[in-house]
């Protein structure tokens, strides 16, 4: 069957780094996420290394971010437990925000690689799945740490009849976190690609700005949900 494609859009093709027949890494995802981690580390180090009473520009930004995440964590987890999980929530939030923006703000299309293309690491489903599973593990760990073995009482509340649903919920939570982030980022990039292939100038810019806004919201949503899940377990 011969097909005519108006534009060639790649979804799900990656720059594979092969180790063995079955084991390979996604090169571009790994590269961009490493870049994000390095950038975030430098940014946070510079922002917090020289703390002053009257903050400079960098310290101001860091303080705003800290206040935002802290308010999210306090609303979801309550004032007595939030501080233990604040580093996790903050890491998740900053990493996702950095990843989403790295895909949108850096002109990756200028760099040609043999397979796939550079993009936001969060448009690879493996990245988002990893983040979602980490969230799951964290709320399991939080439950065990704070409630001990009594954590399992949660599964037969409010009645033992709900046991299957409560167990299924443990699988649907990471799944929905995963698909939400992945779908939103892929949808943004796909929209921009499709519109660029039709009208390459000026028209895509508002869509890109909207994508930037939406990806910020998605990072916030992921952090909020992660802390809501933790809060639900420990309350």
């Amino acid at each position, binding site marked *: 069957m011969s097909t005519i494609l108006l534009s060639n859009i790649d979804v799900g093709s990656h720059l594979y780094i092969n180790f063995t027949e079955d084991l390979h890494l996604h090169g571009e995802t790994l590269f961009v996420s490493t870049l994000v981690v390095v950038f975030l580390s430098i940014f946070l180090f510079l922002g917090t290394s020289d703390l002053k009473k009257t903050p400079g520009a960098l310290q101001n930004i860091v303080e705003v971010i800290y206040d935002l995440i802290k308010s999210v964590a306090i609303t979801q987890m309550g004032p007595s437990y939030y501080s233990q999980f604040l580093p996790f929530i903050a890491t998740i939030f900053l990493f996702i925000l950095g990843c989403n923006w790295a895909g949108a703000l850096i002109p990756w299309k200028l760099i040609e690689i043999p397979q796939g293309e550079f993009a936001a690491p969060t448009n690879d489903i493996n990245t988002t799945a990893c983040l979602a599973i980490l969230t799951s593990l964290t709320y399991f760990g939080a439950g065990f740490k704070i409630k001990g073995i009594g954590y399992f009482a949660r599964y037969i509340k409010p009645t033992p009849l709900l046991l299957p649903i409560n167990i299924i919920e443990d699988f649907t939570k990471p799944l929905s976190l995963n698909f939400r982030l992945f779908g*939103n980022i892929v949808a943004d990039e796909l929209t921009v690609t499709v519109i660029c292939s039709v009208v390459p100038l000026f028209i895509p810019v508002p869509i890109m700005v909207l994508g930037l806004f939406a990806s910020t919201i998605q990072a916030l949503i992921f952090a909020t949900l992660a802390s809501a899940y933790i809060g639900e377990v420990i309350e």
Partner: protein
Amino acid sequence: MDSIVAAASVLAAAIAVGFAGIGPGIGQGNAAGQAVEGIARQPEAEGKIRGTLLLSLAFMESLTIYGLVVALSLLFANPFAG
């Protein structure tokens, strides 16, 4: 790819996105309407209402996104392509 499978996949992708758009559309409309009403009634609460509204809009939008994920996997990673 078999042409029947291709045609069915394209159709299924369109239906998935189309129907997934209906519910969240209604929900988002309701939420936005209520938020506007709330702001009109109490303009000083605008900041709080806006924050909550954005968060809940994103939740609703994610339902559409599930449909989109199904559509994308049918179009680009079709398990029945053979």
